[in-house]
């Protein structure tokens, strides 16, 4: 039986306590960390963490190393289903590495960093960004070839070697340079199939890290997807030029030609077309907006060219 440990307890003013927990499987110095729920609007990641846990629970005797699973790093936000931590209204994924003498979100960030420090591999599980459907993808730092190679085995459509933006230094993943971020599905929802695919991907990563033996996996290795590898230059953001309702005409990971219609923007009061949004190039749909209200400049899709 896995050991369940409280990493930190958040004391609420009313007197209640909300714990952040870690479930430990196996033992030994080689340690893999799997963390989910940094934001409260990514239940897909939490589901994947639990699927992986239940598999490891049954296989614990065969583990060669330690797997620490943090199923929900931001319990109060998850409780409400919001991106930000309630009351303090802060995005935990902008507070790392945190501080032990700060407010509770900062304390949690610090406690997680201290707890995870020294792990050989960190895997962060997320859902899709709010308002979007996304193809399953692994995001690694652009200059980290080793984690990009490992991420090839994560059962995703795309490995995105991303250059850190201005907000990156305060994110969870950035604290651990070789970390792999897995995401996909739909913002703040569970999507049939996606959780299974990502859970299989995590188990396959554990095999490639030699923590888990290949025999006994709940899938055949040949079923694992072979992702395309892209950098920022191959990921194109498509924006609305008009405000209104964006009605998508494309589905996730479908192939599109240059100039193909990705959807239209209609006047919300009359339904008349204001704009046909067209793909700037040929490629695959990596993400598409599913919440229809848009302003001029709102991103409505991401297209990758391979």
């Amino acid at each position, binding site marked *: 039986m896995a050991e369940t440990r409280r990493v930190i307890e958040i004391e609420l003013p*009313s007197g209640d306590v909300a714990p952040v927990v870690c479930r430990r499987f196996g033992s030994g110095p080689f340690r893999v960390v799997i963390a989910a729920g940094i934001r409260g609007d990514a239940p897909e990641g939490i589901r994947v963490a639990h699927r992986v846990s239940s598999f490891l629970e049954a296989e614990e005797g065969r583990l060669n190393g330690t797997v620490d699973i943090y199923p929900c790093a931001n319990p109060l936000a998850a409780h409400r289903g919001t991106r930000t931590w309630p009351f303090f209204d802060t995005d935990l994924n902008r507070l790392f590495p945190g501080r032990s003498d700060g407010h509770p979100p900062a304390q949690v960030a610090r406690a997680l960093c201290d707890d995870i420090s020294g792990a050989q591999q960190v895997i962060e599980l997320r859902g899709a960004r709010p308002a979007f459907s996304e193809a399953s993808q692994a995001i690694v730092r652009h200059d980290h070839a080793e984690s990009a190679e490992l991420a090839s085995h994560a059962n995703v459509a795309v490995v995105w070697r991303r250059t850190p933006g201005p907000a990156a230094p305060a994110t969870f993943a950035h604290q651990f340079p070789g970390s792999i971020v897995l995401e996909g599905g739909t913002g703040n929802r569970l999507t049939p199939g996606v959780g299974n695919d990502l859970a299989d991907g995590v188990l396959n990563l554990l095999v490639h890290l030699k923590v888990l033996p290949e025999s006994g996996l709940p899938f055949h290795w040949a079923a694992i997807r072979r992702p395309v590898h892209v950098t920022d230059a191959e990921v194109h953001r498509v924006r609305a030029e008009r405000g209104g309702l964006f009605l998508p005409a494309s589905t996730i990971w479908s192939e599109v030609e240059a100039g193909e219609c990705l959807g239209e923007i209609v006047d919300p009061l009359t339904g008349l077309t204001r704009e046909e949004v067209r793909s700037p190039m040929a490629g695959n749909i990596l993400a598409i907006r599913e919440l229809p209200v848009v302003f001029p*400049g709102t991103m409505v899709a991401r297209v990758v060219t391979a």
Partner: protein
Amino acid sequence: MTVVYSIEAPYRGRYELHRLTFGSGSPRVAIVAGLHGNELNGMHAVNMLAAALRAQRPRGTVHLFPLVNTFGADEARKRWPFDDRDINKAFPGDPDGTAVQRIASALLDATDADVCVDVHSGAPHVRELPQVRVPLSGRELELGRAMGLPLVWRREGARLQASGLIGAWRDAGRQALHVVGGRGITLDTGHSATIARGLKRLLGHLGLVRHVDPNETVADVTRVEVGVHRAATGGFFVPEVRVGALVKPGHLLGYLQMPIGGDRIGELRARRGGVVVTVRAWPMVYAQELLVRVAGTDST
């Protein structure tokens, strides 16, 4: 009144960025309020200043932006309601980016002035004595002191809000002053009037208007001269002082009690004398949270 920027909005009228301009020529001053849609003491102060400038045309140019985040203000929200983004984190902005990036870019262009002021309220759960936050030295310190607000808070580089509108103004080579007073979600007419007088003194110092009101500064401090009182544990905080109160060491600032049953957990007593500049307004507090700040005065 001029609409300096607008953007198409679904289901409602266009978003419009409004500017009121008084006078012409140099020097040029821009004053921004309501970047956060739930912090409207600054909006009230700027509108009071507008009334004064209608009566007395300035010798130079004054651009006023009473309310940037109109959509947020309509919903009592700090951020832009559509995607919950903070306009103040979108600077320098992008004319081809998202709505908040476009608004940020347009505001930065439209505040082309020698001296720029951004007025905020405190967070909804704290009340702040009207204050200006300035660097440790230089022209911005001189201008901030000229405002004569109750508190002049001199801050080290890293604490001066390097990002945001203030940082973008500095990057563009403009003098930038960060003013904070009162609390979010509420209108405090007294603090608003204090801020309006400070803005008028700034214009007076720059020679744009005749200034009459005497300086109101009580404390002019750096971080080391500010006593910060935090909650030792979570609980229900009952303040015994208001912002602006003068206290001596040992003065009872408030106490913490159990939320249910009301048993007293602890007392908060001033470690130093001075003026109370921050008081927690929302009583449910977490451990380590800020409850009261006391700034040293000349006499302490």
